[in-house]
Protein backbone atom coordinates (compact mmCIF):
# COMPACT_ATOMS: atom_id res chain seq x y z
CA UNK A 1 0.00 0.00 0.00
CA UNK A 2 2.30 2.71 -1.17
CA UNK A 3 -0.48 5.10 -2.25
CA UNK A 4 0.26 8.61 -1.16
CA UNK A 5 -2.41 11.24 -1.33
CA UNK A 6 -0.92 14.01 -3.52
CA UNK A 7 -3.17 16.67 -2.00
CA UNK A 8 -2.08 15.71 1.50
CA UNK A 9 1.53 15.79 0.38
CA UNK A 10 1.06 19.20 -1.09
CA UNK A 11 -0.66 20.58 1.99
CA UNK A 12 2.10 19.25 4.24
CA UNK A 13 4.76 20.82 2.07
CA UNK A 14 2.86 24.10 1.85
CA UNK A 15 2.38 24.08 5.62
CA UNK A 16 6.06 23.56 6.25
CA UNK A 17 6.93 26.32 3.80
CA UNK A 18 4.44 28.65 5.48
CA UNK A 19 5.95 27.97 8.91
CA UNK A 20 9.52 28.56 7.78
CA UNK A 21 8.49 31.77 6.00
CA UNK A 22 6.77 32.99 9.12
CA UNK A 23 9.79 32.12 11.26
CA UNK A 24 12.25 33.81 8.95
CA UNK A 25 9.98 36.85 8.71
CA UNK A 26 9.92 37.16 12.48
CA UNK A 27 13.64 36.67 12.49
CA UNK A 28 14.37 39.37 9.93
CA UNK A 29 11.91 41.65 11.69
CA UNK A 30 13.77 41.46 14.99
CA UNK A 31 17.08 41.95 13.21
CA UNK A 32 15.65 44.96 11.39
CA UNK A 33 14.39 46.38 14.67
CA UNK A 34 17.87 45.97 16.19
CA UNK A 35 19.45 47.75 13.23
CA UNK A 36 16.74 50.41 13.50
CA UNK A 37 17.47 50.90 17.18
CA UNK A 38 21.10 51.69 16.38
CA UNK A 39 20.08 54.12 13.64
CA UNK A 40 17.50 55.74 15.94
CA UNK A 41 20.26 57.12 18.12
CA UNK A 42 20.30 60.15 15.85
CA UNK A 43 16.52 60.60 16.24
CA UNK A 44 16.47 60.61 20.02
CA UNK A 45 17.53 64.21 20.54
CA UNK A 46 14.18 65.37 19.26
CA UNK A 47 11.88 62.34 19.22
CA UNK A 48 13.20 61.21 22.63
CA UNK A 49 14.57 57.84 23.61
CA UNK A 50 11.09 56.47 24.26
CA UNK A 51 9.87 57.80 20.89
CA UNK A 52 7.29 59.98 22.61
CA UNK A 53 8.34 63.25 20.97
CA UNK A 54 7.93 66.57 22.68
CA UNK A 55 5.52 69.45 22.67
CA UNK A 56 7.28 72.80 22.48
CA UNK A 57 4.89 75.72 22.83
CA UNK A 58 5.90 78.49 20.44
CA UNK A 59 8.56 76.33 18.79
CA UNK A 60 8.74 73.33 16.51
CA UNK A 61 7.11 70.40 18.26
CA UNK A 62 8.41 66.90 17.66
CA UNK A 63 5.94 64.11 16.99
CA UNK A 64 5.62 60.87 18.85
CA UNK A 65 6.82 58.03 16.64
CA UNK A 66 6.47 55.19 19.13
CA UNK A 67 3.74 52.81 18.10
CA UNK A 68 2.93 54.48 14.78
CA UNK A 69 2.43 52.34 11.67
CA UNK A 70 5.86 51.46 10.21
CA UNK A 71 4.80 51.76 6.56
CA UNK A 72 3.37 55.19 7.28
CA UNK A 73 6.68 56.34 8.76
CA UNK A 74 8.64 54.97 5.77
CA UNK A 75 6.39 56.99 3.46
CA UNK A 76 7.05 60.14 5.52
CA UNK A 77 10.81 59.66 5.44
CA UNK A 78 10.63 59.27 1.67
CA UNK A 79 8.51 62.40 1.43
CA UNK A 80 11.09 64.40 3.43
CA UNK A 81 13.72 63.18 0.99
CA UNK A 82 11.72 63.97 -2.15
CA UNK A 83 10.38 67.25 -0.77
CA UNK A 84 6.64 66.58 -0.94
CA UNK A 85 6.85 67.11 2.80
CA UNK A 86 9.01 70.15 3.42
CA UNK A 87 10.73 70.25 6.79
CA UNK A 88 14.19 71.75 7.28
CA UNK A 89 14.81 69.77 10.48
CA UNK A 90 13.95 66.39 9.01
CA UNK A 91 15.28 66.70 5.47
CA UNK A 92 19.00 66.24 6.38
CA UNK A 93 18.26 63.12 8.43
CA UNK A 94 16.00 61.59 5.81
CA UNK A 95 18.66 62.27 3.19
CA UNK A 96 21.13 60.18 5.15
CA UNK A 97 18.91 57.09 5.07
CA UNK A 98 18.53 54.58 2.26
CA UNK A 99 15.31 52.60 1.79
CA UNK A 100 16.38 49.72 4.04
CA UNK A 101 17.49 52.07 6.78
CA UNK A 102 14.19 53.92 6.56
CA UNK A 103 12.42 50.60 6.91
CA UNK A 104 14.58 49.53 9.87
CA UNK A 105 14.19 52.80 11.75
CA UNK A 106 10.45 52.80 11.19
CA UNK A 107 10.08 49.21 12.35
CA UNK A 108 11.99 50.10 15.49
CA UNK A 109 9.77 53.04 16.41
CA UNK A 110 6.65 51.08 15.48
CA UNK A 111 7.72 48.39 17.94
CA UNK A 112 7.94 50.79 20.91
CA UNK A 113 4.98 51.11 23.27
CA UNK A 114 3.22 54.44 22.76
CA UNK A 115 3.60 56.74 25.76
CA UNK A 116 0.84 59.22 26.55
CA UNK A 117 1.61 62.92 26.23
CA UNK A 118 1.68 65.09 29.34
CA UNK A 119 -0.55 67.62 27.64
CA UNK A 120 -2.75 69.61 29.99
CA UNK A 121 -5.61 71.72 28.72
CA UNK A 122 -7.71 73.70 31.16
CA UNK A 123 -10.08 75.25 28.65
CA UNK A 124 -13.12 72.95 28.76
CA UNK A 125 -14.92 74.67 25.87
CA UNK A 126 -11.86 74.26 23.69
CA UNK A 127 -11.65 70.56 24.54
CA UNK A 128 -15.36 70.06 23.87
CA UNK A 129 -15.02 71.73 20.48
CA UNK A 130 -11.98 69.58 19.70
CA UNK A 131 -13.79 66.41 20.71
CA UNK A 132 -16.69 67.32 18.48
CA UNK A 133 -14.46 67.91 15.47
CA UNK A 134 -12.54 64.69 16.12
CA UNK A 135 -15.56 62.46 16.59
CA UNK A 136 -18.47 64.13 14.78
CA UNK A 137 -16.91 66.74 12.55
CA UNK A 138 -18.83 69.86 11.60
CA UNK A 139 -20.92 69.11 8.55
CA UNK A 140 -22.20 72.68 8.40
CA UNK A 141 -18.73 73.48 7.07
CA UNK A 142 -18.14 70.07 5.48
CA UNK A 143 -15.52 69.24 8.05
CA UNK A 144 -15.46 65.46 8.15
CA UNK A 145 -14.61 64.03 11.59
CA UNK A 146 -11.02 62.85 12.15
CA UNK A 147 -12.30 59.42 13.15
CA UNK A 148 -14.05 58.83 9.84
CA UNK A 149 -10.59 58.09 8.37
CA UNK A 150 -8.20 57.83 11.33
CA UNK A 151 -10.43 55.17 12.83
CA UNK A 152 -12.25 54.51 16.04
CA UNK A 153 -10.72 56.61 18.80
CA UNK A 154 -8.37 58.03 16.15
CA UNK A 155 -5.87 55.25 16.72
CA UNK A 156 -5.15 54.94 13.01
CA UNK A 157 -6.33 52.92 10.01
CA UNK A 158 -3.72 50.98 8.06
CA UNK A 159 -0.66 52.62 6.56
CA UNK A 160 -2.35 55.70 5.12
CA UNK A 161 -4.22 57.10 8.11
CA UNK A 162 -1.88 57.34 11.12
CA UNK A 163 -2.86 57.30 14.77
CA UNK A 164 -3.39 60.88 15.91
CA UNK A 165 -4.84 60.26 19.37
CA UNK A 166 -2.11 60.83 21.93
CA UNK A 167 0.01 62.75 19.45
CA UNK A 168 1.78 65.97 20.51
CA UNK A 169 -0.58 68.95 20.22
CA UNK A 170 1.98 71.34 18.75
CA UNK A 171 2.88 68.81 16.08
CA UNK A 172 -0.74 68.25 15.00
CA UNK A 173 -1.24 72.00 14.89
CA UNK A 174 1.84 72.51 12.74
CA UNK A 175 0.85 69.77 10.31
CA UNK A 176 -2.68 71.07 9.83
CA UNK A 177 -1.18 74.46 9.07
CA UNK A 178 1.37 72.86 6.73
CA UNK A 179 -1.51 71.39 4.75
CA UNK A 180 -3.26 74.74 4.73
CA UNK A 181 -0.25 76.50 3.23
CA UNK A 182 0.81 73.59 0.99
CA UNK A 183 4.18 72.97 2.61
CA UNK A 184 2.98 69.42 3.22
CA UNK A 185 1.59 67.81 0.09
CA UNK A 186 2.17 64.11 0.60
CA UNK A 187 -1.33 63.15 1.70
CA UNK A 188 -3.01 60.67 -0.63
CA UNK A 189 -5.40 62.44 -3.01
CA UNK A 190 -5.23 65.62 -0.91
CA UNK A 191 -7.69 64.03 1.47
CA UNK A 192 -6.18 65.79 4.48
CA UNK A 193 -5.46 69.09 2.76
CA UNK A 194 -9.10 69.42 1.67
CA UNK A 195 -10.29 69.18 5.26
CA UNK A 196 -7.42 71.21 6.75
CA UNK A 197 -8.28 74.13 4.50
CA UNK A 198 -11.78 74.30 5.98
CA UNK A 199 -10.45 74.63 9.55
CA UNK A 200 -9.94 77.96 11.27
CA UNK A 201 -7.22 78.66 13.84
CA UNK A 202 -9.51 77.89 16.74
CA UNK A 203 -10.58 74.55 15.23
CA UNK A 204 -6.93 73.60 14.84
CA UNK A 205 -6.08 74.57 18.38
CA UNK A 206 -9.09 72.72 19.74
CA UNK A 207 -8.70 69.49 17.82
CA UNK A 208 -4.94 69.36 18.50
CA UNK A 209 -5.44 69.87 22.22
CA UNK A 210 -8.17 67.27 22.44
CA UNK A 211 -6.27 64.63 20.47
CA UNK A 212 -3.15 65.21 22.57
CA UNK A 213 -5.09 64.42 25.73
CA UNK A 214 -6.34 61.07 24.39
CA UNK A 215 -4.87 57.63 25.01
CA UNK A 216 -2.32 56.74 22.30
CA UNK A 217 -3.21 53.04 22.14
CA UNK A 218 -5.85 50.53 23.20
CA UNK A 219 -3.51 49.26 25.94
CA UNK A 220 -3.24 52.68 27.52
CA UNK A 221 -6.92 53.55 27.05
CA UNK A 222 -7.79 52.04 30.41
CA UNK A 223 -5.13 54.08 32.21
CA UNK A 224 -6.25 57.35 30.67
CA UNK A 225 -9.91 57.00 31.55
Amino acid at each position, binding site marked *: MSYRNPLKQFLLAAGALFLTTQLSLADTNSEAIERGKALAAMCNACHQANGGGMNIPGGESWPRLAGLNADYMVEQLKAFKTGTRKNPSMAPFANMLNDTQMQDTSLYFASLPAPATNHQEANKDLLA*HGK*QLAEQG*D*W*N*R*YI*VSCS*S*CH*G*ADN*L*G*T*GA*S*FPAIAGQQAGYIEQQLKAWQNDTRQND*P*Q*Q*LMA*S*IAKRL*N*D*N*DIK*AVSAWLATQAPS*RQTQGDKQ
Partner: protein
Amino acid sequence: MKTLTKTLFSLVVSGSLLLAGATAHAQITKYGKDLSDAEREQIKLLAPNAPSPKDNEFVHIPPSIDELDATKLHPKMKEAIRRGHDLFVDTQQLYGKNVYNNMNCSSCHMGEGRLPFAGPIWPAAVVLPSFRPKNDHVNSLEERIAGCFTYSMNGMPPAYGSDDMLALSAYIQWLATGVPMYLKDKMYGRGYPRLADAAKKPDANRGEVAYQENCSICHDDNGAGAKEGDHVVFPALWGDDSYNWGAGISRVYTLASFIKYNMPLGKPSSLNDQQAWDIAQYINSQERPQDPRYTGAIKQTLKLYSDTFHKHSMYGQKYKGKVLGDHSNVGHKDFLKPDILRPRDFSGK
Protein backbone atom coordinates in the same frame (compact mmCIF):
# COMPACT_ATOMS: atom_id res chain seq x y z
CA MET B 1 -20.89 108.43 13.48
CA LYS B 2 -23.33 106.30 15.37
CA THR B 3 -23.77 103.99 12.38
CA LEU B 4 -20.02 103.70 11.98
CA THR B 5 -19.61 102.68 15.60
CA LYS B 6 -22.40 100.18 15.16
CA THR B 7 -20.79 98.71 12.06
CA LEU B 8 -17.43 98.51 13.76
CA PHE B 9 -19.04 96.87 16.74
CA SER B 10 -20.79 94.26 14.63
CA LEU B 11 -17.58 93.61 12.72
CA VAL B 12 -15.76 93.00 15.97
CA VAL B 13 -18.54 90.74 17.20
CA SER B 14 -18.73 88.69 14.01
CA GLY B 15 -14.94 88.54 13.89
CA SER B 16 -14.69 87.20 17.39
CA LEU B 17 -17.43 84.68 16.67
CA LEU B 18 -15.41 83.39 13.76
CA LEU B 19 -12.33 83.21 15.91
CA ALA B 20 -14.20 81.28 18.54
CA GLY B 21 -15.02 78.71 15.90
CA ALA B 22 -18.73 79.27 16.31
CA THR B 23 -20.30 79.03 12.89
CA ALA B 24 -23.30 81.06 12.08
CA HIS B 25 -25.63 78.16 11.45
CA ALA B 26 -29.34 78.39 11.41
CA GLN B 27 -32.06 76.25 9.94
CA ILE B 28 -33.10 77.35 6.45
CA THR B 29 -36.61 76.55 5.24
CA LYS B 30 -37.68 78.58 2.21
CA TYR B 31 -37.77 78.79 -1.57
CA GLY B 32 -34.58 79.39 -3.51
CA LYS B 33 -35.78 82.79 -4.66
CA ASP B 34 -36.11 83.97 -1.06
CA LEU B 35 -32.60 83.06 0.08
CA SER B 36 -30.44 85.87 1.39
CA ASP B 37 -26.79 86.18 0.37
CA ALA B 38 -25.74 84.97 3.82
CA GLU B 39 -27.96 81.90 3.48
CA ARG B 40 -26.49 81.15 0.06
CA GLU B 41 -23.03 81.34 1.61
CA GLN B 42 -24.15 79.00 4.37
CA ILE B 43 -25.34 76.48 1.77
CA LYS B 44 -22.04 76.73 -0.10
CA LEU B 45 -20.15 75.88 3.09
CA LEU B 46 -22.33 72.87 3.80
CA ALA B 47 -22.52 71.59 0.22
CA PRO B 48 -19.23 72.65 -1.38
CA ASN B 49 -19.17 72.51 -5.18
CA ALA B 50 -22.81 71.38 -5.33
CA PRO B 51 -25.28 73.10 -7.68
CA SER B 52 -26.86 76.21 -6.10
CA PRO B 53 -30.57 76.23 -5.28
CA LYS B 54 -32.86 77.29 -8.12
CA ASP B 55 -35.51 79.93 -7.47
CA ASN B 56 -38.42 77.48 -7.59
CA GLU B 57 -36.76 74.82 -5.43
CA PHE B 58 -37.74 74.34 -1.83
CA VAL B 59 -34.61 74.55 0.28
CA HIS B 60 -34.55 72.93 3.69
CA ILE B 61 -31.40 72.79 5.76
CA PRO B 62 -32.48 70.97 8.92
CA PRO B 63 -31.37 71.76 12.45
CA SER B 64 -28.35 69.77 13.63
CA ILE B 65 -28.34 67.53 16.69
CA ASP B 66 -26.26 70.10 18.58
CA GLU B 67 -29.23 72.45 18.43
CA LEU B 68 -31.60 69.94 20.03
CA ASP B 69 -30.80 70.91 23.61
CA ALA B 70 -31.79 74.51 23.03
CA THR B 71 -35.26 73.58 21.74
CA LYS B 72 -38.35 73.63 23.94
CA LEU B 73 -39.18 69.99 23.28
CA HIS B 74 -39.99 67.76 26.24
CA PRO B 75 -36.83 66.14 27.68
CA LYS B 76 -38.22 62.69 26.90
CA MET B 77 -38.77 63.70 23.30
CA LYS B 78 -35.19 64.92 23.16
CA GLU B 79 -34.06 61.53 24.41
CA ALA B 80 -35.98 59.77 21.66
CA ILE B 81 -34.54 62.05 18.96
CA ARG B 82 -31.05 61.64 20.35
CA ARG B 83 -31.45 57.86 20.35
CA GLY B 84 -32.60 58.02 16.72
CA HIS B 85 -29.57 60.12 15.80
CA ASP B 86 -27.29 57.73 17.64
CA LEU B 87 -28.74 54.73 15.77
CA PHE B 88 -28.44 56.63 12.52
CA VAL B 89 -24.72 57.42 12.83
CA ASP B 90 -23.82 54.16 14.59
CA THR B 91 -26.14 51.56 13.13
CA GLN B 92 -23.42 48.98 13.66
CA GLN B 93 -24.60 48.77 17.27
CA LEU B 94 -27.45 46.69 15.77
CA TYR B 95 -25.07 44.29 14.02
CA GLY B 96 -26.28 40.71 14.11
CA LYS B 97 -29.77 41.81 15.10
CA ASN B 98 -30.90 44.24 12.41
CA VAL B 99 -27.75 44.89 10.40
CA TYR B 100 -25.75 42.14 8.71
CA ASN B 101 -23.17 44.13 6.77
CA ASN B 102 -20.68 46.98 7.29
CA MET B 103 -23.10 49.84 6.82
CA ASN B 104 -24.35 52.65 9.00
CA CYS B 105 -27.30 54.77 7.84
CA SER B 106 -24.81 57.63 7.65
CA SER B 107 -22.54 55.68 5.28
CA CYS B 108 -24.79 56.82 2.43
CA HIS B 109 -26.84 59.59 4.05
CA MET B 110 -23.89 61.86 4.64
CA GLY B 111 -23.74 64.56 7.28
CA GLU B 112 -26.06 62.77 9.67
CA GLY B 113 -28.82 62.73 7.05
CA ARG B 114 -28.96 66.52 6.74
CA LEU B 115 -27.03 67.29 3.57
CA PRO B 116 -28.49 68.04 0.15
CA PHE B 117 -27.20 65.76 -2.67
CA ALA B 118 -26.39 63.16 -0.02
CA GLY B 119 -29.74 61.45 0.41
CA PRO B 120 -31.16 63.88 2.99
CA ILE B 121 -33.71 61.99 5.06
CA TRP B 122 -36.18 64.75 5.95
CA PRO B 123 -38.16 64.43 2.69
CA ALA B 124 -39.31 60.95 3.80
CA ALA B 125 -41.11 62.58 6.72
CA VAL B 126 -43.19 64.84 4.48
CA VAL B 127 -43.91 62.66 1.43
CA LEU B 128 -45.03 59.47 3.20
CA PRO B 129 -47.40 57.62 3.36
CA SER B 130 -47.04 57.29 -0.37
CA PHE B 131 -47.22 54.75 -3.18
CA ARG B 132 -43.84 53.15 -3.83
CA PRO B 133 -43.23 51.37 -7.14
CA LYS B 134 -40.43 49.30 -5.61
CA ASN B 135 -42.91 47.22 -3.61
CA ASP B 136 -46.06 48.26 -5.45
CA HIS B 137 -48.07 49.48 -2.48
CA VAL B 138 -48.54 52.45 -0.16
CA ASN B 139 -45.68 52.74 2.33
CA SER B 140 -45.45 54.38 5.73
CA LEU B 141 -42.31 56.06 7.08
CA GLU B 142 -41.53 52.97 9.19
CA GLU B 143 -41.92 50.78 6.12
CA ARG B 144 -39.52 52.99 4.22
CA ILE B 145 -36.98 52.65 7.03
CA ALA B 146 -37.59 48.89 6.96
CA GLY B 147 -36.60 49.00 3.29
CA CYS B 148 -33.19 50.45 4.18
CA PHE B 149 -32.60 47.71 6.72
CA THR B 150 -33.75 44.98 4.33
CA TYR B 151 -31.70 46.03 1.33
CA SER B 152 -28.95 48.54 2.14
CA MET B 153 -28.07 46.93 5.49
CA ASN B 154 -28.84 43.42 4.17
CA GLY B 155 -30.66 42.93 7.46
CA MET B 156 -33.79 42.50 9.51
CA PRO B 157 -35.74 45.71 10.19
CA PRO B 158 -36.57 46.58 13.80
CA ALA B 159 -40.22 45.69 14.47
CA TYR B 160 -42.84 48.25 13.46
CA GLY B 161 -43.73 50.30 16.51
CA SER B 162 -40.56 49.26 18.35
CA ASP B 163 -38.53 51.77 20.35
CA ASP B 164 -35.72 51.76 17.79
CA MET B 165 -38.14 52.30 14.92
CA LEU B 166 -39.82 55.15 16.77
CA ALA B 167 -36.47 56.72 17.64
CA LEU B 168 -35.36 56.67 14.00
CA SER B 169 -38.72 58.09 12.88
CA ALA B 170 -38.51 60.80 15.54
CA TYR B 171 -35.05 61.87 14.34
CA ILE B 172 -36.18 61.95 10.71
CA GLN B 173 -39.34 63.90 11.49
CA TRP B 174 -37.50 66.32 13.74
CA LEU B 175 -35.12 67.08 10.88
CA ALA B 176 -38.18 67.94 8.78
CA THR B 177 -39.28 70.59 11.32
CA GLY B 178 -41.06 73.42 9.54
CA VAL B 179 -41.47 71.71 6.15
CA PRO B 180 -45.05 71.64 4.83
CA MET B 181 -46.63 68.16 4.66
CA TYR B 182 -46.99 66.73 1.14
CA LEU B 183 -44.97 69.58 -0.27
CA LYS B 184 -45.49 69.56 -4.03
CA ASP B 185 -42.49 71.64 -5.09
CA LYS B 186 -39.13 70.32 -6.15
CA MET B 187 -36.88 69.86 -3.13
CA TYR B 188 -33.29 71.10 -3.39
CA GLY B 189 -30.78 68.25 -3.39
CA ARG B 190 -33.36 65.55 -2.63
CA GLY B 191 -32.10 61.98 -2.82
CA TYR B 192 -29.11 61.61 -5.10
CA PRO B 193 -30.09 63.81 -8.04
CA ARG B 194 -29.55 61.93 -11.29
CA LEU B 195 -26.47 63.03 -13.21
CA ALA B 196 -26.71 63.89 -16.87
CA ASP B 197 -25.73 60.96 -19.06
CA ALA B 198 -21.98 60.82 -19.49
CA ALA B 199 -20.43 61.42 -22.91
CA LYS B 200 -19.32 57.81 -23.10
CA LYS B 201 -21.47 54.84 -22.01
CA PRO B 202 -20.44 53.88 -18.44
CA ASP B 203 -17.70 51.28 -18.62
CA ALA B 204 -16.55 48.91 -15.87
CA ASN B 205 -13.01 48.61 -17.23
CA ARG B 206 -12.48 52.36 -17.22
CA GLY B 207 -14.26 52.36 -13.88
CA GLU B 208 -11.82 49.88 -12.43
CA VAL B 209 -8.87 52.11 -13.31
CA ALA B 210 -10.60 55.16 -11.82
CA TYR B 211 -11.57 53.13 -8.76
CA GLN B 212 -7.98 52.09 -8.08
CA GLU B 213 -6.87 55.71 -8.44
CA ASN B 214 -9.56 57.35 -6.36
CA CYS B 215 -11.31 54.88 -4.08
CA SER B 216 -9.05 51.96 -3.21
CA ILE B 217 -7.00 53.83 -0.62
CA CYS B 218 -10.01 53.62 1.71
CA HIS B 219 -12.22 50.89 0.26
CA ASP B 220 -9.31 48.57 -0.66
CA ASP B 221 -8.41 47.08 -4.03
CA ASN B 222 -11.03 44.40 -3.55
CA GLY B 223 -13.87 46.59 -2.28
CA ALA B 224 -13.66 45.16 1.21
CA GLY B 225 -13.36 48.54 2.93
CA ALA B 226 -11.39 48.75 6.18
CA LYS B 227 -11.95 47.70 9.75
CA GLU B 228 -9.84 48.39 12.81
CA GLY B 229 -10.58 45.56 15.19
CA ASP B 230 -14.38 45.19 15.17
CA HIS B 231 -14.93 48.77 14.19
CA VAL B 232 -15.82 49.56 10.58
CA VAL B 233 -13.90 52.58 9.31
CA PHE B 234 -14.64 52.39 5.58
CA PRO B 235 -17.63 50.32 4.45
CA ALA B 236 -17.34 47.42 2.01
CA LEU B 237 -18.59 48.22 -1.49
CA TRP B 238 -19.23 44.67 -2.60
CA GLY B 239 -19.15 41.14 -1.22
CA ASP B 240 -20.92 39.81 1.87
CA ASP B 241 -20.16 42.91 3.96
CA SER B 242 -21.88 45.24 1.54
CA TYR B 243 -25.40 46.19 0.37
CA ASN B 244 -27.43 43.53 -1.41
CA TRP B 245 -28.81 43.38 -4.95
CA GLY B 246 -32.04 45.03 -3.87
CA ALA B 247 -30.47 48.18 -2.38
CA GLY B 248 -31.30 51.46 -4.11
CA ILE B 249 -27.62 52.20 -4.48
CA SER B 250 -27.09 48.98 -6.47
CA ARG B 251 -28.68 50.94 -9.34
CA VAL B 252 -25.83 52.41 -11.36
CA TYR B 253 -27.38 55.89 -11.66
CA THR B 254 -27.93 56.17 -7.91
CA LEU B 255 -24.38 55.16 -7.08
CA ALA B 256 -23.00 57.44 -9.80
CA SER B 257 -24.72 60.43 -8.20
CA PHE B 258 -23.68 59.40 -4.70
CA ILE B 259 -20.06 59.19 -5.84
CA LYS B 260 -20.15 62.47 -7.74
CA TYR B 261 -21.59 64.53 -4.90
CA ASN B 262 -20.02 62.76 -1.91
CA MET B 263 -16.81 60.92 -2.72
CA PRO B 264 -13.91 60.80 -2.07
CA LEU B 265 -14.80 61.68 1.49
CA GLY B 266 -14.18 65.37 2.10
CA LYS B 267 -13.85 66.13 -1.62
CA PRO B 268 -17.40 66.30 -3.01
CA SER B 269 -17.81 66.92 -6.76
CA SER B 270 -14.09 66.54 -7.39
CA LEU B 271 -14.52 63.68 -9.89
CA ASN B 272 -16.01 64.40 -13.30
CA ASP B 273 -19.35 62.88 -14.34
CA GLN B 274 -17.71 60.30 -16.58
CA GLN B 275 -15.53 59.05 -13.72
CA ALA B 276 -18.54 58.87 -11.40
CA TRP B 277 -20.56 56.84 -13.94
CA ASP B 278 -17.64 54.53 -14.74
CA ILE B 279 -16.76 53.86 -11.10
CA ALA B 280 -20.43 53.17 -10.33
CA GLN B 281 -20.59 50.79 -13.27
CA TYR B 282 -17.52 48.96 -11.95
CA ILE B 283 -18.60 48.75 -8.30
CA ASN B 284 -22.12 47.66 -9.17
CA SER B 285 -20.80 44.96 -11.51
CA GLN B 286 -19.36 43.09 -8.52
CA GLU B 287 -21.12 40.32 -6.61
CA ARG B 288 -23.13 41.03 -3.47
CA PRO B 289 -25.77 39.26 -1.36
CA GLN B 290 -28.97 38.18 -3.07
CA ASP B 291 -31.95 40.52 -3.54
CA PRO B 292 -34.38 39.64 -0.71
CA ARG B 293 -37.15 39.61 -3.34
CA TYR B 294 -35.45 36.66 -5.09
CA THR B 295 -37.97 34.01 -6.07
CA GLY B 296 -35.40 31.23 -6.38
CA ALA B 297 -34.89 31.86 -10.09
CA ILE B 298 -33.13 34.90 -11.47
CA LYS B 299 -35.21 35.11 -14.67
CA GLN B 300 -38.45 35.11 -12.71
CA THR B 301 -37.09 37.69 -10.25
CA LEU B 302 -36.06 39.91 -13.14
CA LYS B 303 -39.45 39.57 -14.75
CA LEU B 304 -41.09 40.84 -11.58
CA TYR B 305 -38.69 43.64 -10.73
CA SER B 306 -36.92 44.69 -13.92
CA ASP B 307 -39.21 47.59 -14.86
CA THR B 308 -39.33 49.15 -11.44
CA PHE B 309 -35.77 48.43 -10.43
CA HIS B 310 -33.34 46.03 -12.04
CA LYS B 311 -33.28 47.64 -15.47
CA HIS B 312 -31.01 50.16 -13.67
CA SER B 313 -28.82 47.56 -11.95
CA MET B 314 -26.45 44.93 -13.35
CA TYR B 315 -28.47 42.12 -11.75
CA GLY B 316 -28.87 39.23 -14.17
CA GLN B 317 -26.33 40.63 -16.63
CA LYS B 318 -23.05 39.05 -17.57
CA TYR B 319 -19.79 40.42 -16.17
CA LYS B 320 -16.52 38.65 -16.87
CA GLY B 321 -18.38 35.60 -18.10
CA LYS B 322 -20.67 35.20 -15.08
CA VAL B 323 -24.30 36.13 -14.60
CA LEU B 324 -24.47 38.59 -11.71
CA GLY B 325 -26.81 37.72 -8.85
CA ASP B 326 -27.34 34.16 -10.05
CA HIS B 327 -26.76 32.54 -6.66
CA SER B 328 -28.47 31.90 -3.35
CA ASN B 329 -25.89 33.61 -1.13
CA VAL B 330 -27.64 35.86 1.38
CA GLY B 331 -24.46 37.18 3.03
CA HIS B 332 -24.01 37.02 6.79
CA LYS B 333 -27.70 36.57 7.67
CA ASP B 334 -29.51 33.24 7.62
CA PHE B 335 -32.73 34.26 5.90
CA LEU B 336 -33.60 35.75 2.54
CA LYS B 337 -36.49 38.11 3.20
CA PRO B 338 -37.58 39.60 6.54
CA ASP B 339 -41.03 38.38 7.54
CA ILE B 340 -42.31 41.81 8.41
CA LEU B 341 -42.29 42.87 4.76
CA ARG B 342 -45.76 42.28 3.41
CA PRO B 343 -47.93 43.68 0.65
CA ARG B 344 -50.81 46.05 1.43
CA ASP B 345 -54.08 46.43 -0.41
CA PHE B 346 -56.80 49.01 0.13
CA SER B 347 -59.03 48.06 -2.80
CA GLY B 348 -61.49 46.32 -0.50
CA LYS B 349 -61.35 43.22 -2.72
